[in-house]
């Protein structure tokens, strides 16, 4: 199930740009609109672009959905354990915000250019949710693609 050269070329060219945009949306979730869920959906759609361009057989050689499932569980466990880190105060307590460690700066009130080194736990939570959404959505699409590939192969 190999697609035409045009689709392959265009998906190869577009893939890095979509990927960079999605990672930007995840990493800047605490500064600009977006976050883990939205950026994860963008990155997963970039992976789906490759799936559409090169076909499930090529993708199946390189990655199994079991690995993606493990990755998704890692993201979910990371999210919950980040929430548990502040359990001495409450669940989901943002203990990093305002501390003078990593991500500990407090921005000035009102409009400001933004600084990546702010917001405490929020960027870390965005990253873990992003990993989870990327792996989860791509696993769903990949399994559906495998099923249609197998079913289509059987009919012929």
């Amino acid at each position, binding site marked *: 199930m190999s697609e035409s050269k045009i689709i392959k070329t265009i998906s190869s060219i577009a893939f890095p740009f979509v990927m960079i945009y999605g990672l930007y949306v995840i990493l800047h979730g605490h*500064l600009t609109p977006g976050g883990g869920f939205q950026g994860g959906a963008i990155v997963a759609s970039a992976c789906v672009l490759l799936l559409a361009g090169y076909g499930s057989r090529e993708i199946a050689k390189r990655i199994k959905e079991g690995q993606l499932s493990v990755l998704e569980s890692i993201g979910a466990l990371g999210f919950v354990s980040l929430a548990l880190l502040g359990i001495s105060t409450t669940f989901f307590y943002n203990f990093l915000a305002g501390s003078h460690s990593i991500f500990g700066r407090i921005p000035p009130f009102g409009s400001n250019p933004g600084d990546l080194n702010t917001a405490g736990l929020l960027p870390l939570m965005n990253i873990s949710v992003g990993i989870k959404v990327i792996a989860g959505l791509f696993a769903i699409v990949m399994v559906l693609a495998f099923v249609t590939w197998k079913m289509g192969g059987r009919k012929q």
Partner: protein
Amino acid sequence: MNKTVSACALALFAVFLVASVLMLRPFGEPEETTMDDYIIGNAQNETGANNAVTSVVFDYRGFDTLGEATVLFTAVAGVLLVLRRYAHE
């Protein structure tokens, strides 16, 4: 017997639904926007995030996000559970 039980359960559920609709506040109330004002005024200082929406989603209402993540996890687990067998046979 089963039908009677389910009819009773359905009637009870309908009673609760109608009662809760009748007990709703009128449209547009409550008018105070104390929660909005609090978040707009304090979100940047308390969480350090410029994006107040993210600070609500991941900090003030973190439990809601945990539920969303659980929904996605359940969806992926269900799809893999049902379809993996067909994908690899």
